[in-house]
């Protein structure tokens, strides 16, 4: 059976959930082979998780010299493996780094690039959801070993045992002239809330929230439901909430079971990032706000009275 390569996304010695999604998706095409690129000892920490999610193989590309390298090691390792193993496909998570690695591996290996897919079928057909979910597009690659990036949260993770047989591979050396060097890293603080793209419930606030302090109203509701917090671009641009939480065309695309929009008008660019959510709830003072056109349940009212009441109801129900 052909191998399907999965680039392992990891942070602080832990595998990200999106990698398990990729391992699950990979199984329709062939045997999942996880590729770990990191400092010595990384794969050892990740192996159990990978084995529990069906990795038949783990390619271990470890090196001491990755400190100031920027994506080049991942690209070089994947490209070398593609040349050697001729996998059925290479799967990478849709993220800023993932997209870049994918694009570079595709051009380096002459492979088709299928970006941001939500589904992969046994015949290699992929499905994209484009223009904010306004269209569903199916596509296929016309080359061997296509490089496919997967939208986070589009696949239900299945746990299944895999052998996770380790194989050491070399990290090819990178020509200094062609490489960018990292001089400083300041990783974003990951809070206690679930990640936006992985959360089953997202509570977002817009300009109507009015200030950074007031975002507490949004956070409290989110915390009562174990939800992630999102924000409109207007809220981000006004400095109410950090840019990493922006939902929409130029922010994150989310598709949770439940999306609650507080003080968001529902501009087309915001909708592009959330309208495929299963259920949408909107609270807005303006009965004409376009968000109501796509809300399953809308309340015309002041978010500062409606949201706290909902928080209270949810909390009461839990106890």
């Amino acid at each position, binding site marked *: 059976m052909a191998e399907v390569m999965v680039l392992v996304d990891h942070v602080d010695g832990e595998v990200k959930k999106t990698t398990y999604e990729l391992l699950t998706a990979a199984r329709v095409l062939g045997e999942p082979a996880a590729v770990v690129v990191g400092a010595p000892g990384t794969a050892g920490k990740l192996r159990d998780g990978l084995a529990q999610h069906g990795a038949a193989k783990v390619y271990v590309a470890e090196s001491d010299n990755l400190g100031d390298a920027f994506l080049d090691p991942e690209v070089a390792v994947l490209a070398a493996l593609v040349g050697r193993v001729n996998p059925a496909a290479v799967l990478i998570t849709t993220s800023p780094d993932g997209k870049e690695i994918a694009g570079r591996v595709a051009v380096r290996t002459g492979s*088709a*690039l299928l970006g941001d897919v939500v589904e992969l079928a046994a015949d290699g057909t992929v499905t994209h959801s484009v223009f904010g979910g306004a269209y569903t597009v*199916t596509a296929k690659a*016309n080359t061997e070993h296509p490089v496919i990036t997967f939208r986070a949260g589009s696949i239900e993770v299945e746990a299944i045992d895999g052998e996770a047989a380790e194989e050491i591979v070399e990290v090819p050396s990178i020509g200094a002239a062609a490489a960018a060097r990292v*001089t400083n890293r300041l990783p974003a603080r990951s809070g206690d809330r679930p990640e936006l793209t992985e959360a089953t419930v997202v509570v977002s606030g817009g300009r109507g929230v009015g200030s950074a302090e007031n975002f507490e109203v949004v956070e409290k509701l989110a915390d009562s439901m174990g939800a992630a917090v999102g924000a409109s671009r207007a809220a981000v641009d006004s400095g109410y909430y950090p840019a990493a939480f922006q939902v929409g065309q130029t922010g994150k695309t989310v598709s949770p079971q439940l999306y609650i929009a507080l003080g968001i008008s529902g501009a*087309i660019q915001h909708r592009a990032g959330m309208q495929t959510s299963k259920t949408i709830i909107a609270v807005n003072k303006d009965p004409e706000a376009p968000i109501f056109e796509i809300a399953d349940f*809308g309340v015309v009212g002041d978010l500062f009275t409606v949201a706290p009441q909902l928080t209270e109801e949810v909390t009461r129900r839990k106890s």
Partner: protein
Amino acid sequence: MNIVVLVKQVPDTYSERTFDESDRTLDRESADAVLDEINERAVEEALKLKEAGEGEVTVVTMGPGRATDAIRKALSMGADKAVHLSAEALHGSDAVQTARVLAKLLGTLDHDLVIAGNEASDGRTGAMAAMVGELLGLPSLTHARKVEVDGRTVRVQRETDEGRTDLEASLPAVVSVGEKINEPRYPSFKGIMAAKKKPVSTLTLADVGVDAAEVGLENALTSVLQVTPRPAKTGGQKVTDEGDGGARIAEYLISQKLI
């Protein structure tokens, strides 16, 4: 310093974007077309770098005839000249093909710094700078929140959801800018008048050494099979808060087994 800015004309996100029925490509005729928002910022950054030292800013686009509007916009902001690669055969090219053509095109131009947008609003490939860099054998410094050129060194503060990474490389290099990098200037009346006299060279595939058999829909590395519009989501219930708005949402969520 020769700065080349890669710009792209995209359907306005405020207008309805559709697909061409016959070949399932993005219908670029029916929607209003604009210079991609992030590309305005790419042009702005190039102009700033030029103003801080010296150099020349060339805007480059690959796209249909009417992409000249996007070029004019960039020229009226202050770019010095433009190169427009336009050919019927390019229609339907995918991301890898586009990167290959842009790399060939850049090969015909002097470039110390190539600036692109990090992600256009239509394709969302979001990897063009990296792909072009890869093909040219140049470092790519992407998602810039800040760009600095110091002699032959370029430094970029890269900002993504994952945090900030400071990058450094020797020129020539490719940089992509993010939407937070700057506020693009509005073209002045003088700028708009001056743009009319600025040189725009229109190139053909032969001029950049690309064979028509390598590009376009027929030769793409990926093929679109089917495009299905998703039924538009329609609004459900809307109630006015009468002091019980929160409770009514809770009731609804309970009825839907969401809490």
